[in-house]
């Protein structure tokens, strides 16, 4: 193509070429809007630069303490550390088990009933729009302080994510085998089980590992509102300004997250 253009004059086109649409005004408006929103947000939260500078003196002593973890505190953190890990494991298992059938109900490709589909999707969107820490606060109020409320919060958080991701991979999956199963007299659930499940199993497994990584991190945070694990411990030492101990806990979380994430990343690579 390009050679013919250079070697001979451009031939007259048979049909008129459409003019390229212009987006200049729109882009400018978008930039202006973005800047305006940023300024509004800054004023709203009262970014007070002088105050930050004044606090800095105070902060330096704290930071120095944070840089010196109290390793002697380690034995006392073990139960909370284990609890965090257990919460993450249990929530991942329950969350994925609930998510798999829900994902089939939430995908257009596997659920032929429009009303049921819309209903399931609506509930899932609701669940996903609530932050995990909010679930935890509510559940702590309902079932009390401890790991149980934390696990329940994580399960809801997990269902929201896994159902979304797995139902999307179902939507994108080739439905040929499912059509063949239906044509052979299978009901929808049977056709989905036999023809669609094997196709999305690797992506499901990978989502499960990914949510496990998220759970390790989330389970430390939701503990801050009383939902079990290391978070409760963080809340305790922090309120007594025991920064050497806080420092150790943060270090532990860092190591835990890094180790488990690389383990899970390695496993996921083996899956696909």
């Amino acid at each position, binding site marked *: 193509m390009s050679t013919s253009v250079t070697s001979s004059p451009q031939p007259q086109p048979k049909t008129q070429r459409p003019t390229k649409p212009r987006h200049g005004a729109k882009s400018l408006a978008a930039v202006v809007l973005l800047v305006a929103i940023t300024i509004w947000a800054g004023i709203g939260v009262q970014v007070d630069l002088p105050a930050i500078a004044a606090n800095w003196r105070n902060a330096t002593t704290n930071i120095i303490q944070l840089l010196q973890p109290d390793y002697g505190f380690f034995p006392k953190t073990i139960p909370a550390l284990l609890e965090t890990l257990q919460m993450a494991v249990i929530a991942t298992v329950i969350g994925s088990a609930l998510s798999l059938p829900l994902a089939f109900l939430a995908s257009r490709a596997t659920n032929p009933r429009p009303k049921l589909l819309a209903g399931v999707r609506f509930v899932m969107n609701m669940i996903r729009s609530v932050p995990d820490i909010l679930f935890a606060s509510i559940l702590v109020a309902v079932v009390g302080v401890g790991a149980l409320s934390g696990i329940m919060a994580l399960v809801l958080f997990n269902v929201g994510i896994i159902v979304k991701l797995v139902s999307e991979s179902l939507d994108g999956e080739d439905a040929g*085998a499912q*059509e*063949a199963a239906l*044509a*052979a007299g*299978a*009901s929808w*659930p*049977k056709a989905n*089980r036999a023809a669609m499940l094997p196709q999305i199993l690797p992506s499901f497994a990978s989502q499960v590992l990914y949510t496990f990584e998220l759970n390790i991190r989330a389970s430390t945070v939701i503990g801050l509102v009383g939902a079990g694990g290391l978070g409760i411990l963080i809340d305790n030492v922090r309120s007594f300004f025991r920064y050497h101990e806080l420092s150790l806990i943060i270090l532990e979380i860092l190591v835990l997250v890094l180790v488990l994430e690389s383990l899970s990343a390695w496993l996921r690579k083996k899956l696909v």
Partner: protein
Amino acid sequence: MEHTAADIRFSDVSVTYPNGYTGLKNINLTIPAGEMVGIVGLSGAGKSTLIRTINGLVPITSGSINVGAHQLNGRGGTQLRGKDLRELRSNVGMVFQSFNLAKRTTVLNNVLMGRLYHSPAWRTLLGAWKNDDVELAMAALERVEIVPKAYEKASSLSGGQQQRVAIARTLAQRPQVILADEPVASLDPPTSHVVMRDLQRINAELGITVVVNLHFLDLARRYSDRLIGLRSGEVVFDGAGADADESVFENIYGRSLTAEDVLGNKAEL
């Protein structure tokens, strides 16, 4: 159990798609049990539509279709649905142009899909197939000579092998009828002949009715007892394959023939 066959009867069948397009117009046809019928016509003539009405994948707008003891009706008539529709479908196997296998699972699991209608829900859920069903699936694979690959992933097979697995899947249904929608359109010429001969053998040895849409005239003439020509949703030819000469095909296609219309001597076997 024997493969028993059933007649297929179209009575004044029309199909209008939801967008208003008429796919089939007043089709009257009887396909006796055990026949091997080829359907030819230009792209868009309604070949797929015709084949898909037989197992209810495309609902008919008016008229009725009888498949053995089952009857499919147009709008206003009693609709075959739920368990009754699934029972009809369990008697009718279907082969697709693009094979339609679940590629990430084994060949055997794909063939077992032909048993889904008969298998209890809990067995399907757990993947705990009855030994009888597994044996039936193996016997079906034997017919298309792919038994050694039973436990391999479907994706690891060649196109021709995948289509033969799809044929085995229909055999596992112990069907009365096999519908094939351009089963060789994605295959090279030698493989096309292998697959067509499989279908021919199944028709001859098991007495299963085979209705096959074909793109190439020479394949259609060679492998079918009877040819049906479609043009714009209407039957414009119905007769023995041997009677279909060039002028007949030019009438079906509404134009003169080209090299594109025959698979040709590209590979003579």
